[in-house]
């Protein structure tokens, strides 16, 4: 954290994207989180991904609940819409907003407390409904704002800063999301932007509920020996199954790969998501094998990262509800009230 505003001056070669914006134009207010918080790195990754995709800031809605992670939407995309909901209710508010205006990009930002405890039910239903959104959980395994109690995602057997061992089972958000039918599930680490930024880009491009679990060390309360969410522990136990090398077909393919090491996943808009496999046996398009694989690796104490599951034929809530293409909030009385003649016709059909 700092008291100073980030100076407006920037590198002389700072590039502009297709819209003429620089990366700095996607920044928000100065962060008030602790210095070294993993959440700030995630904010930086979101800024980078949105700049790279040349997303129009006014076409983004950031929604969050309560907690350190839920403060972060103030620190990125300063020119976008924002909604800070009550604790754990972000998924419901997001669902409502999405129903009202399907044209915006919905960024749900939450934490392990907000999504795995108080908002667990809300989280579950937004995922299973297939709301078209990017749901990011900034997962540090600890209640940082209340000084370091274990959260529901803290690993059993891990040690708190005060030396207490966690005796309760942990919730694996990725497993839950897979089970609930999320069509894009990924896990990453705040300290690995090379992996995280392409994952956020892919999640934004995905149609349907995209879930991203980002391990984000709490530098103040969960970065010690015995923690399983510290920078050192995550780096030692991080097992990436794949890397996203490019997302859009319009991106030039510059690298040749040996056969079997690449998995191409077609996207709804005709583009292709190309995954470079780190683990040759991993198939990101099969939900059942993915869940088995994750269970096995978790047992060995490994943290599997990468794009874990993606459904190329995903559908979203609007598809299920068969809503019109025009956002509901743009429909006026003329669209909604077809007039007396039509009413007569409908009534006649009922007689």
């Amino acid at each position, binding site marked *: 954290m700092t008291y100073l505003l980030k*100076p407006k*001056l920037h*590198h*002389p070669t*700072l590039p502009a994207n297709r819209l003429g914006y620089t990366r700095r134009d996607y920044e928000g207010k100065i962060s008030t989180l602790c210095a*070294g*918080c993993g959440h*700030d790195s995630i904010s930086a990754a979101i800024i980078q991904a949105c700049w790279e995709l040349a997303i129009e800031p006014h076409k983004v809605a950031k929604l969050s609940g309560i907690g350190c992670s839920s403060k972060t939407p103030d620190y990125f995309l300063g020119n976008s819409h924002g909604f800070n909901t009550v604790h754990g209710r972000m998924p419901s508010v997001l669902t409502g907003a999405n129903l009202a205006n399907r044209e915006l990009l919905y960024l749900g930002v939450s934490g392990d407390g907000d999504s795995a405890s108080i908002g667990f039910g809300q989280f579950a239903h937004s995922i299973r409904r297939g709301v078209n959104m990017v749901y990011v959980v900034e997962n540090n395994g600890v209640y940082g704002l209340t000084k370091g109690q274990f959260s529901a995602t803290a690993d059993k057997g891990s040690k708190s800063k005060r030396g207490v061992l966690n005796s309760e089972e942990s919730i694996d958000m990725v497993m839950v999301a897979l089970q609930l039918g999320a069509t894009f599930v990924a896990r990453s680490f705040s300290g690995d932007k090379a992996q995280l930024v392409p994952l956020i880009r892919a999640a934004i491009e995905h149609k349907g509920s995209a879930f991203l679990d980002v391990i984000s060390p709490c530098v103040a309360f969960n970065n010690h020996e015995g923690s399983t969410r510290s920078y050192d522990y995550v780096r030692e136990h991080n097992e990436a199954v794949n890397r996203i090398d490019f997302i859009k077909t319009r991106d030039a393919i510059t690298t040749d790969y040996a056969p079997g090491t690449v998995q191409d996943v077609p996207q709804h808009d005709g583009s292709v998501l190309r995954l470079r496999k780190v683990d040759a046996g991993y198939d990101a398009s099969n939900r059942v094998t993915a869940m088995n694989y994750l269970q096995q690796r978790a047992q060995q104490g490994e943290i599997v990262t990468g794009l874990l599951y993606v459904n190329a034929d995903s559908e979203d809530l609007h598809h299920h509800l068969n809503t019109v293409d025009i956002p509901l909030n743009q429909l006026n009385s003329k669209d909604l009230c077809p007039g007396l003649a039509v009413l007569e016709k409908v009534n006649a059909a009922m007689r």
Partner: protein
Amino acid sequence: MKPTDIGAPDYFHKVVDCQWACPAHTPVPEYIRLIAQGRYSDAYMVNWQSNVFPGILGRTCDRPCEPACRRGRVEDEPAAASNAASSVSSASKEPVAICRLKRVAADYKDDITSRLPKPPAKKNGKRIALIGAGPASLAVARDLAPNGYHVTVFDEVAKAGGMIRTQIPRFRLPEEVIDEEVGYILGLGIEFRHQRIESLKAILEMKGDDAYDAIFVGTGAPRGRDLDVPGRKEASKHIHLGIDWLSSVSFGHVTKIAKRVIVLGGGNTAMDCCRTSRRLGGDDVKVIVRSGFEEMKASPWEKEDAIHEGIPILNFLVPKAFLHANGKLTGMSFDKVKAEYDAKGRRNLVPTGEPEQVFECDEVLIAVGQENSFPWIERDCGIEFDKWAMPKVDEKTMQSSVPKVFFGGDAAFGPKNIIWAVAHGHEAAISIDKFCNGEDVANRPPPMVNMMSQKMGIHEWSYDNQISTDNRFKVPWRDTQITLKNIKIEVEMGFDPLTGFKEAQRCLNCDVQTVFTRDLCIECDACVDICPMDSITFAANGEEKELRGRLTAPADNLTQDIYVSPELKTMRVMVKDEDVCLHCGLCAERCPTGAWDMQKSLIQMTYAGPSCRDKHSPVKKAA
């Protein structure tokens, strides 16, 4: 790349671009901070120690520091159409007005005489002769006198100061400023003799009590170059050499000039000549130069000053003849030329073939260059000269082929400027001090580098790390209605204290260095994310050229170093491009472990005296 050795005295010195560019290596950010704090006297003394003439240089310096200033690289270009959507600030790229801030220190200081060194009670018995009383000699005198040397300065002019007094017009530099700062030096117990030296041999051969242990030649480049074209002799009554004419004006021998004046030459002397002419009756004054306007030697701001006073500068005109009738100058003719560059990039001025151009005039001032002249140095006294009739002088030690004779200022390597003369003076003083102590003059003392953490609290630093977005402030000019009527009225009025403060706040504090400690870093990326200039990268190591290309922002300015850490836990290295760092300290504020610290690198040159010697005088033990 190998990890950067930040212990090398030059590493952080180079980051302080202004100080590195200054021939005398004045600690610029240090005194600018003092100005911002209103500590003008302290700021003045920092300057006085380093460049000897803060008030004079604050008005007349050639300011090599300003083109080097980092501020000139980090400010935004005026918003271009291509990124009109961008909301970032739109300032123009301008350096800090370092030179004029120096003047602020001089203008608002209190009486500092009590802070000056006292003439030593006990002399060391060594006698030094300084020939010429210009800036080089006075710098030598200032460095040596407090160390007990008996210093005698000779000059053919009755008052000390050299070209500062004789050539710089009063409307740029008031005489009181010269008297004050030259007075500080003469007050150190220096003997000044109004005496023209006719023979170096005679001084070298002095015996007994009169003999000098070392001699310093600081006679400048006293001869104006002439222009030998037809009509020069016939019209000579109305043609003058610029620097001679300026000194005649300075002494009051010349008080008038004709209405129509042509000044030949494109250097700062030409600018002084034309502006002086405007004040002595020249209504129609023009400057005519051979080269293009851009390539003129004069400093851009001096050209600007001349144009502001209604003086046109005509370029690409080569003088052909002085036109005269009945012994009276009537005008000058010129050939129009254009610049062509050969394969080696050398410029040639070739005639355009257009008809010659004639400008009518009543008087001409020739300011086409200055030359050295040593008629008083006998060619058989041991001083070796090169084929351009310049003495052979060692560039570091300033020593000539006669070990006890040293040169400095324009006399050493041809015309430069005051700040170079001062720098030469410091070096020569060190050499003389070592020479008189029987030491090898080639063994030069390193500068003193002092690293001090600026951390005061969690977000508190002992420097102001907020970056001002102000554009460079302009020094106000006095109305030309007033200045053109009186040659002694200074044109520039200097900054008022508030503007001085605001201008001082534009300084980026480049001497407050980002110091990285590998063992404390947890690689959380906080510094990478917060850095406004994208200066920090964590990446796999590589060769410098290749590594520079794959940083967060490419490090294309090869004159600026990149700072590389030893290998981190993830086998990567931290790489920081020093080029456009704002020294805002946000990396250190965001660092959770204190791996980044902001440390002030105070680099102070070593001057003549015990500290420059190989054998330091025995340290006195505390009682």
